[in-house]
């Protein structure tokens, strides 16, 4: 089975994000970047499918040269190959741009993939759009926010997390599947894997290589303004004897907080 896994480089979830109001973007200096955690579930699932059924796993990322690091991590986890689609535009938050680049790459450069695996969303931008867009552009079935995946021959069954329940969907391959937390527990990269990744080359594909021009990617989205979330208000402490405190608390919840 031929599996493509799409991974994004994002700021470490432990990092404190600062915003530059002039450029409407986050300040990268001092930030630690990682592979988006949901993409790790996708990677792990691909490796498990390969181990069970054979085949090849290729990791793909769109972005600048710095994305090599997360692709190396995928190789260290056990991916057979990795490819960087070089787009010097960096983080545009334009999901359609990324989806077009990925869809074109799948058509042009990767022969007959059976499964396209994504994280359900990237942490940071959190748009959750790219998997669906790629599926649409390629005319493939899609199953998103998947917590369990079974592949048998040319058929897939996915269990999707929906509000208060789990939905079971069946589809034919090739298909797009996006991973939710719970799908699996990603493995640790091993030292041997990292040593092997050191020796592997990561080819780069430019827009030209994909037969695309900047006009094909005209932005569909403009970031008008970016703000940090407002700081959380301090909590309220009700100090009194228990019966009075309970009364005051209920009053607060009804009248001020308007929760009950």
């Amino acid at each position: 089975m031929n599996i493509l896994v799409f991974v994004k480089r994002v700021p470490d979830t432990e990092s404190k994000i600062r915003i530059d109001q002039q450029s409407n973007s986050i300040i990268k200096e001092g930030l630690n970047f990682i592979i988006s955690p949901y993409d790790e579930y996708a990677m792990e699932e691909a490796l498990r499918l390969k181990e069970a059924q054979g085949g090849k796993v290729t990791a793909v990322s769109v972005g600048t040269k710095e994305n090599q690091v997360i692709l190396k991590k995928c190789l260290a986890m056990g991916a057979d190959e990795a490819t960087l689609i070089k787009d010097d535009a960096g983080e545009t938050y334009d999901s359609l741009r990324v989806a077009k680049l990925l869809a074109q790459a799948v058509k042009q450069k990767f022969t007959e993939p059976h499964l396209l695996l994504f994280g359900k969303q990237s942490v940071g931008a959190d748009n959750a759009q790219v998997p669906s867009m790629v599926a649409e552009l390629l005319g493939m079935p899609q199953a998103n926010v998947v917590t369990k995946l079974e592949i048998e021959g040319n058929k897939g069954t996915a269990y999707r997390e929906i509000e208060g329940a789990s939905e079971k969907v069946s589809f034919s391959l090739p298909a797009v599947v996006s991973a939710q937390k719970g799908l699996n527990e990603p493995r640790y990269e091993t030292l041997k894997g990292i040593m092997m990744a050191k020796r592997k080359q990561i080819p780069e594909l430019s827009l030209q290589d994909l037969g695309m021009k900047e006009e094909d990617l005209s932005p569909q989205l403009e970031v008008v303004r970016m703000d940090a979330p407002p700081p959380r208000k301090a909590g309220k402490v009700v100090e009194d004897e228990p019966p009075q405190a309970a009364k005051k608390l209920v009053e607060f919840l009804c009248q001020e907080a308007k929760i009950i």
Partner: protein
Amino acid sequence: MTEPREKDFLNIEDLFRDEELMIRDTVKKFVDKEILPEIDAHHRKATFPLKLVPLLGEIGLLGINLKGYGCPGGSNVEYGLAMQELERGDSGVRSFCSVQGSLCMFPIWAFGSEDQKKKYLPKMAEGKIIGCYGLTESEAGSDPGSLKTRARKEGDSYILNGSKMWITNGSIADLAVVWARTEEGEIKGFLVEKGTPGFETSEIKGKFSMRASVTSELIFNECRIPEKNVLPRAQGLKPPLKCLTEARYGISWGALGSAQACYETALKYARERIQFGKPIASFQLVQHKLVNMLTAREKGKLLSLQVGREKDKGTANHAMVSMAKMNNVQMARNCARTAREILGANGICDDYVPIRHMMNMETVYTYEGTHDIHELIIGRAITGLNAFS
């Protein structure tokens, strides 16, 4: 309040290659997920988290810097970064890896026969054989040359008699590398398998330091070791000391991890703890402490990294390693104590990590050459004069 600086104050990360940082991050994740949630329970019960051993092997943290025979084949800097992260978790787990890799696998790798390497190294790298290292005796500590364990030749075997003390992993080990003196007065290395008649171990109880680690006495009573279990390429005191140099190098990095855990805990606490109406981090005396901890640790990082790069080039010597071990462990010992101090009464409970690190550091300060001994090693190197005899 201005935004505090991010963790990597001097941008030392820029001095590492991507793969090196990848190894560090993998071990970091392992420590956060597997070690930190469990370590306090082990520390309280004085038990070693034995169930981690197969995973340590799987990730490749046993014999990291050894090549071939199923070993991971990493560089010395990679080895160092892994030790740093492990000891950020606990000195006991780092000690396990130091003993397994540098004190047990290394002598087999460096001084062993082809058969010995093939028989033991792959399984040790996987964690299926646990090793320990018997050099120290109750009356031969800083002066290992005075060891009293004897090896008497009898036919094609040696008969071991004597005992070894303060042996990390002793009672959980499947294999002991034991140094003993032959009748000719020469020190040789013996591979003693668990279950060999005449070989017993006894765990040392009542430790107030390095509690999440097994420390034992090894006892040899007419213990017969076949010739094929003698390390063929080790004669004299130099080979066992060479093993110590390997382990000391890793310890210098480990100390950085311990110091990091203590510093970060103290910094967070000081910024949150309100006294006299403001965070205690706003007081000059507390800032003084925090700044000194950070500065000492950043210097220590550069020291270990430089020695590591030299080691990878093959141009390091044992005195350089002594400087790194001496400086960084003292730094970590001070850091743990200062962090505990900043935490006030909270600092004496294991709800916060510094007290555990503070207790651990007493062992790390003492084993693998005490601080004083390293001063004398460096002293000999720069004066040409030997203070030992």
